């Protein structure tokens, strides 16, 4: 089956984001296609490049990054959620005249249309709340 995920949880609010990342790994491990993970609302903080996690704690950023790299999963941050939270790629940093990009390069910014398209083309959409 084709799966997509909607993540509303910030990477720092409890371990909801880690739970979602583990679920994503399990989706792939069971032979499904994980098409897209859409990060909305506080979930968009997941793509903040400068996140530092203590060495003895699991990093949500690292988990999602691995998933994106190993399984070609699209990691999309809702652009308006991301901008509000200071997560900018180079294009948006220039557009809004900020001196630096803050988004991790494994993520992409995109509109809610990409969530809608994921719903249209996926058999399952699983939401992970804050």
């Amino acid at each position: 089956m084709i799966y997509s995920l909607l993540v509303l949880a910030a990477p720092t609010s409890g371990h909801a984001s880690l739970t979602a990342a583990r679920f994503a790994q399990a989706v792939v491990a069971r032979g499904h296609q994980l098409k897209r993970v859409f990060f909305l609302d506080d979930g968009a903080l997941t793509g903040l490049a400068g996140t530092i996690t203590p060495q003895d704690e699991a990093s949500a950023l690292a988990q999602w990054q691995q998933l994106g790299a190993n399984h070609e999963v699209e990691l999309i941050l809702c652009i308006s959620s991301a901008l509000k939270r200071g997560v900018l790629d180079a294009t948006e940093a220039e557009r809004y005249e900020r001196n630096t990009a803050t988004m991790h390069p494994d993520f992409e910014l995109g509109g809610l249309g990409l969530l809608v398209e994921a719903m249209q083309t996926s058999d399952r959409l699983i939401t992970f709340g804050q």
Partner: protein
Amino acid sequence: MATTARKSVLVVTRHAHQGSALGRSALDAALVSATFELPVTLLFQGQGVLQLLPEQDCTEAGIRNLRKVIESLPLYDITPIYVDAAAAARYALQAELLPPQAQLISLDRQRQLLADHDHILGF
């Protein structure tokens, strides 16, 4: 997305306007679903019904007036909007305070909505 059958979407919005951006995100998700021509149903449930309070004046607060955004839903053909009747009663939201396209529905009808759509977005 031109030729395949459209997946239907139920957006459930359960958070009040203050203290959470989820209400706004739920409305955005519904509006964009409609823009991309997915059949979308909107259900205000639990504390989410508080988003429907009329006479919100958000000027001083400097935030979006959700009731006004909700008034634009018919222009996106998102109509009617469904409202958890028990929650509306709990918060003294009589029918005449609600937007004209609101329909108060029972728990059973809400369960039916959950079963009737291809995807559910729970906010």
